[in-house]
């Protein structure tokens, strides 16, 4: 599986070239275009496996309940994947390690990559932001997208990132979610939502813009539901 990111950083799409019989798993709705002879299967979980609890967790996490699996025919094939908001994409090669990914940033992955749906839940509920995380592990390529530009931060020690700006981070980092201010009230009025405090050694990928903040900025201009 070969992935090429095109049209970044403003409106990136991933061109995925598959060898004969290779399988690409993608977030539902991400497919822009593809070879005609690819076969497509929609499942609630990883292809050829069962796991209804995982599928339910996926629904709770706000990430689509369903995933599409594209299998290349004997000639191989291509699939283009896009995302909803303006922004960039990048790939990461997993080699037995694990990334924690903000649910909305997942675009697609090779078949041998396992996507699990952890719900970090209760603490996040207070934020009003949907801070849900996917655990992505195994071996192979993962494709992730951002709202705006992507930059990486090498953490060695302690570092703080606003939860709305996190795309993904290496699992070697410990993290805890808290408030930017000294109290909830302080934090609420300060305009800073929840922050993630990282500890240890590893990489955090951040997005230049926060989609929830952008959406909230649009609210006064939008018509009532």
């Amino acid at each position, binding site marked *: 599986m070969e992935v090429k990111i*095109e049209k970044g950083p*403003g*409106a990136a799409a991933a061109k995925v070239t598959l060898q004969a019989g290779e399988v690409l798993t993608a977030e539902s709705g991400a497919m*822009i275009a593809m070879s005609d002879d690819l076969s497509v299967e*929609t499942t609630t979980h990883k292809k050829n496996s069962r796991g209804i609890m995982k599928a339910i967790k996926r629904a709770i996490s706000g990430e689509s309940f369903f995933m*599409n699996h594209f299998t290349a025919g004997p000639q191989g094939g291509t699939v*283009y994947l896009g995302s909803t908001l303006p922004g960039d994409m990048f790939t990461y090669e997993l080699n037995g390690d694990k990334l924690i990914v903000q649910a909305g940033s997942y675009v697609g992955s090779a078949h041998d990559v396992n996507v699990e749906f952890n719900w970090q839940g209760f603490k996040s509920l207070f934020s009003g932001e949907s801070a849900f995380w996917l655990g992505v592990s195994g071996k192979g390529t993962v494709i992730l997208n951002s709202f705006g530009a992507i930059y990486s931060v090498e953490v060695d020690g302690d570092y703080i990132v606003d939860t709305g700006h996190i795309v993904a981070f290496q699992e070697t980092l410990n993290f805890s979610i808290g408030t930017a201010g000294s109290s909830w009230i302080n934090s609420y009025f300060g305009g800073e939502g929840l922050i993630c405090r990282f500890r240890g050694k590893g990489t955090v990928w951040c997005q230049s813009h926060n989609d929830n903040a952008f*959406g909230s900025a649009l609210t006064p201009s*939008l*018509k009532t539901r």
Partner: protein
Amino acid sequence: MENTFEHYIEGRPDFALLTVKIPSGQTLKVEASAMATMDTNLKMKTKMKGGFGRLFTGESIFINDFTAENGAAEIKIAPSAPGDLIHYPLNGSETLYLQSSAFVASAPSVTVNSKWQGFKGFFSGAGLFLAQCTGSGDLWFNSFGGVIEIDVKDSYVVDTGNIVAFTGNLSYTVTRFGGYKSLFFSGEGLVCRFQGEGKVWIQTRKIGPLTSWAHPFRPEGKN
């Protein structure tokens, strides 16, 4: 050369802006509301009753004529969606289909006809209205997001919402994506299956998912 305009495109691929120089006495067709700036000697004409200058493609795409009077003039044209612009000179013997909101500007010698997709288009939800462009001369079209050009050799599948343009030598059918389960749960809706040999231009973003994303941010109505 006639019906060929001196022009340049800035801000590609995210915020493309088209500048065209119109020689004295000549006319350029421009998508209504796309004019950003222009010289004062350009006269705009909108014909009220379905003349050459105005077209209705089912998505209220209107075209205005801009004519340079008493000397050459310059116009800058900015499509409504952030994205790319493609210049495609038609050679007189071919046809190009545009997703109707993709039309930006053309030489007056290019004929733009709406083509109602009828039953096929109805199912797409995305309103697959096409503008059929024929004739010879300059043509410009735009996208939401980046544009990727695909050379179709045999067949290729494109989500209906990602189609920008395609050459008339391709045949196409609108079908559901995958199996029945995929139709409801894949999130892909309908796709267009192109067959033959030709070119398809696709865009890397779609309007529909963006508006769906914005929906939860709409204020609650007072009931």
